[in-house]
């Protein structure tokens, strides 16, 4: 009887826990706090935060409980992450939610979305310089795309062991966009530039919006076929939205599908951050590189907007360059916020959505390109 009790006690989390589990549980609680109390990306941080708690309850190996054990419930749910299923489904939902009309009205703003992808490739170089192998470096670099699903997709393909730290870094920094971006925006632009008003975009016809996803899909995926799982689903979702006759499917994609997948993705990514796998020096390097990539991406967009202004007759507000990082719609909101801090009557949100959504396309192409180089 006593032996049985001792055996039971030795199998409890209280007995098996060490300081690393405590650290991760605190991290999970911070995520939940930031999501609920500070409203930083609550739909992502709350599931990830709780997932971190789930993944860091010490369990007896062999019971089939851990996410990394075969046949455990969590391992089946994690299957969608490791095989890239969840990111693709999330992209379909994003497509069904996104209105590309501001981008169609002013295609020149798409270049800002391309410029911000410099963050991906500069971080890739930084990761190589720190000694990561090329596949790991590519997965870390994609954090600069500021696109959680893309980062998870690429790291699942190239560096599955790093999914946890990469996903947590990507989503943490996406949540911290309102904190990271404004100082860089103010540093790299003058007040006069921040006051520039944008011309109203032309009206975009329904036909244009319907034809756009088909043309964009064909153009991008013929150029970078490896981006097919992400861009294919993104533009398919958008076609469902714009086709009108498929409104029921669009509604499913933009609500139940994306919500269910976000829950599963957040929870399992959080659960994959088990202390023994997560608390390593590489994770700290990934976090530093992730922060650097966000800063570089923001700066690249801003500087490119200023360069464009040297050639454009109708000047653009360089703040829009910061929206090129594809954290939709947070970076566009930050542009609006910083612009309105200078002039409360200047509305930049609508214009900022153009580089913002083109950033999503750009980061997916970037992921496809890196994947094809590494295979």
């Amino acid at each position, binding site marked *: 009887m006593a032996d049985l009790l001792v055996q039971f006690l030795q199998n409890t989390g209280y007995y098996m826990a060490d300081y690393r589990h405590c650290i991760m549980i605190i991290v999970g609680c911070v995520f939940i706090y930031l999501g609920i109390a500070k409203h930083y990306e609550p739909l992502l941080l709350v599931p990830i935060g709780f997932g971190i708690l789930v993944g860091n309850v010490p369990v007896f190996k062999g019971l089939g409980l851990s996410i990394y054990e075969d046949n455990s419930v969590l391992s089946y749910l994690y299957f969608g992450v490791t095989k890239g299923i969840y990111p693709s489904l999330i992209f379909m939902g994003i497509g069904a939610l996104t209105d590309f009309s501001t981008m169609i009205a002013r295609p020149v703003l798409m270049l800002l979305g391309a410029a911000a992808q410099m963050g991906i490739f500069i971080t*890739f*170089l930084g990761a190589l*310089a720190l000694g990561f192998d090329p596949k790991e470096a590519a997965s870390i670099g994609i954090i600069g795309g500021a696109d959680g699903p893309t980062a998870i997709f690429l790291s699942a393909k190239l560096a599955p062991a790093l999914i946890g730290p990469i996903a947590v870094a990507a989503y943490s920094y996406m949540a911290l966009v309102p904190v990271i971006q404004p100082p860089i925006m103010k540093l790299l632009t003058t007040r006069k530039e921040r006051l520039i008003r944008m011309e109203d975009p032309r009206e975009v016809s329904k036909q244009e919006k319907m034809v756009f996803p088909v043309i*964009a899909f064909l*153009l991008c995926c013929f150029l970078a076929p490896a981006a097919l799982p992400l861009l294919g689903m993104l533009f398919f979702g958008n076609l469902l939205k714009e086709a009108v006759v498929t409104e029921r499917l669009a509604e499913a994609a933009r609500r139940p599908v994306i919500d269910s997948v976000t829950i599963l993705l957040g929870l399992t990514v959080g659960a994959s951050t088990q202390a023994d796998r997560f608390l390593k020096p590489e994770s700290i390097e990934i976090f530093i590189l992730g922060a650097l990539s966000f800063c570089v991406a923001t700066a690249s967009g801003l500087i490119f907007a200023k360069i464009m202004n040297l050639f454009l007759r109708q000047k653009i507000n360089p703040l829009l360059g910061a929206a090129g990082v594809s954290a939709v719609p947070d970076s566009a909101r930050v542009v609006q916020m910083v612009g309105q801090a200078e002039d409360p009557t200047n509305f930049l949100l609508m214009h900022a959505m153009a580089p913002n959504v083109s950033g999503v396309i*750009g980061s997916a192409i970037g992921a496809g390109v890196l994947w094809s180089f590494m295979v």
Partner: protein
Amino acid sequence: MNGLDAISANNGWNIAALGITIVFTGLVLLSLAISQLHKILTLWETKHLFYEQVKEVWQKKRTGVADDDRFLAEEQPPEVVLPKSLKKSADQFNILVLHLGEPFPLPKLLELAIKRGLDRPHSTLNHLIQTKLIVPDKLGFFHWNEKVYNCISEPEDE
């Protein structure tokens, strides 16, 4: 291996340069395609007008020189008599058109006219279209008809 050596050893510079070039190429291609999209769709929607134009030209070619002469005679713009005030407005609109370049979208011209404070821009524009000083190109844009403009004369009693 760390630092720049690691980047060079793993072909990092080339991958980064090529990667960003491909991303830019993709988005530039896409932006070029969608910048032309509305023109292609307008052409598609007005394809019957396009067919009619082609048909007209084809018929003119078939009917020979005699008809060509008749066509040229028909094409001679009639002398247009405009009130003095409208003649002045036509001159002002001509300057705006030169500023916009051809072909120009009509709303843009109207917007510019309002911005410059031209007198009764809506009705003047309507008159200019009726007198065929401003003619549509059937692709959604408009042209300034120089032939008609050169034939404008002012009424003597005004």
